[in-house]
């Protein structure tokens, strides 16, 4: 009963706008004081925050965030978009396809979806507008392409999932590669389906001479170098995810220096933003750990697992229900908060049904991608709306076809788990 009251108290505080980490830590502590007494609750408080931050794997999070910050400072996204545009821009819809590919490329060197949307918006929306693309269509492509960073390694969301569930982080990151490619292809297919219905939304842009195309390949080089540093080193077993994150952050710093975009101010800004983004995430993790004691003492997780496994339906029906739950939650809450709050309860349930936690992690992140572009709290929509200077409703309409294609991809990944699990099985 106390645990139930604590959960209700948590929901009330969240609705009041109390920071998620504060709400979790507060309700967790109050619950512990009620269940096991003041002294025991203080004992949990004295050890949990430091022990939560003591894991070597955790350090991958600030380092991947720092890498994303230096990638933004370097302007790689702009160069990448321009280079891809030179190659495919002359085709009808070519700039939209270039946006999707640049989104995937940016995702391969940065784990932040919102940062990707911001970087792509500043370059690709003006380019598509100049080429006569329909703004609703162009904004939708940018918003959805930004979400790829959440799935394609290095994915901060997948690292966090691995930390919370204690699943091999390298397997998770490599598991995101093929789904990331599939989602990229789904975006491109959706672009062509929309163009088939109305070709005027994405006219062909100017062609480029071969000399420019060859020269443009130089701008792809730094992206490939970082890709090799991070995903390559993890896949080949040369570095742990934390070491790869360190190499990636340092590599992005070197590239930014080589592009002459670094100054003391931009370097300090990148480091300070990385610190604050990290602290925002870890405040929630520490709160969730304290709250987790209440869930354990209240037998909430085992109760949920027993209930799920006792249902007289196919495990796939349960999985469909869980995915729908994530899609609905994604409309109203931040994706990181959903991940940290729900995964500790969900994963024991899905593993008891015989599903693989690596596969489930990738599914949750693909569902979270949808949450980034669905109303009312689609973060990428807010970012794109600001850059495109168009109303939110128009961007939401523009991205709606991509939401449908994302859900189709989710169904595909549920039906064929090997799409996720095959590549991690081949790692060194």
């Amino acid at each position, binding site marked *: 009963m106390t645990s139930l009251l604590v959960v209700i108290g948590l929901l009330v*505080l*969240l*609705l*009041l*706008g*109390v*920071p*998620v*980490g*504060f*709400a979790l*830590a*507060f309700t967790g*502590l109050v619950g512990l004081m009620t269940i096991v007494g003041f002294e025991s609750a*203080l*004992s949990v*408080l*004295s*050890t949990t*925050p*430091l022990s939560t*931050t*003591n*894991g*070597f794997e*955790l*350090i991958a999070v*600030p*380092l991947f965030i*720092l890498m994303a910050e230096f990638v933004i400072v370097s302007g790689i996204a702009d160069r990448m978009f321009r280079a891809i545009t030179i190659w495919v821009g002359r085709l009808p819809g070519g700039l939209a396809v270039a946006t999707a590919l640049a989104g995937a490329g940016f995702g391969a060197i940065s784990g932040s979806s919102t940062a990707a949307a911001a970087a792509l918006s500043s370059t690709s929306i003006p380019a598509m507008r100049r080429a006569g693309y329909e703004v609703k269509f162009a904004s939708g492509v940018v918003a959805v392409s930004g979400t790829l960073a959440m799935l394609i390694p290095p994915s901060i969301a997948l690292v966090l999932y691995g930390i919370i569930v204690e699943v091999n982080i390298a397997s998770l990151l490599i598991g995101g590669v093929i789904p990331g490619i599939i989602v990229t292809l789904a975006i491109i297919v959706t672009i062509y389906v929309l163009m088939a219905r109305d070709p005027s939304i994405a006219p062909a842009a100017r062609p480029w001479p071969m000399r420019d195309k060859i020269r443009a390949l130089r701008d792809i080089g730094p992206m490939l170098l970082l890709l090799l540093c991070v995903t390559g080193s993890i896949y080949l077993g*040369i*570095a742990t995810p*934390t*070491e790869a994150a*360190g*190499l990636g*952050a*340092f590599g992005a*710093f070197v590239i930014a220096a080589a592009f002459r975009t670094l100054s003391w101010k931009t370097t*300090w800004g990148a*480091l*300070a933003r*990385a*610190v*604050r*983004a*990290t*602290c*925002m995430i*870890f*405040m*929630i993790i520490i709160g969730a750990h304290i709250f987790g004691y209440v869930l354990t003492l209240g037998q909430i997780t085992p109760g949920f697992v027993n209930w799920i496994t006792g249902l007289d339906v196919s495990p796939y029906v349960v999985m469909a229900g869980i995915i729908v739950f994530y899609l609905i939650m994604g409309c*109203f*809450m*931040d994706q*990181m*908060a959903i991940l940290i709050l729900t995964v500790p309860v969900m994963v024991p349930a899905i593993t008891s049904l015989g599903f693989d936690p690596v596969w489930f992690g990738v599914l949750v992140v693909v569902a979270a991608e949808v949450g980034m572009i669905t109303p*009312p*709290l689609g973060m990428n929509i807010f970012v794109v709306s600001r850059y495109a200077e168009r109303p939110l409703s128009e961007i939401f309409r523009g991205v709606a076809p991509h939401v449908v294609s994302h859900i189709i991809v989710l169904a595909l990944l549920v039906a064929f788990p090997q799409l996720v699990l095959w590549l991690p099985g081949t790692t060194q």
Partner: protein
Amino acid sequence: MIRKCMAVVDHAFTAVAVFALAFMTLLIVADVALRYGAGTPIFFAHDLVVLYLTPAVFFFGFGPTYWRAEHLSVDLLTLNLPHRLRELTDVVSSAIGLWVFGLLTWVAWERAAKSFANNEVIASIVPWPAWASYALVPIGSAAMVLVCAARIVISLNNAFGRATGEAAQ
């Protein structure tokens, strides 16, 4: 006045966290490079990163993050509240933060002091002092307590005081 004092706290604690993050990155890269390049990894890198640099990034960064209102919250309902009610929800948030981090400062300080008195060291190649790692928690948490207290005063002033603009968030 409050804003000026908190700006100093914000800059000081951010500086330590930024230095720790930069040093951590360089140390990890150097460790990997030396391991594969010269076959001699930095033997103390892991302990230094886990014991001191990581807690410094996290605990020294919590206060500045809250001062800039960058801790994640669900603002679906509060965005539509009238100004005064919104300020009051901020007071509730800061009061909760004050209570949690006040307790944390207290218990973590006791733990660090006890470790210092017992001259505890880490069981590793280098016997690093444990108390220095423990001490990062109460120092960082104390900054958070200050930020929460400052935000309570500012929000109450915004809700009920004169609209001076100076106090507005």
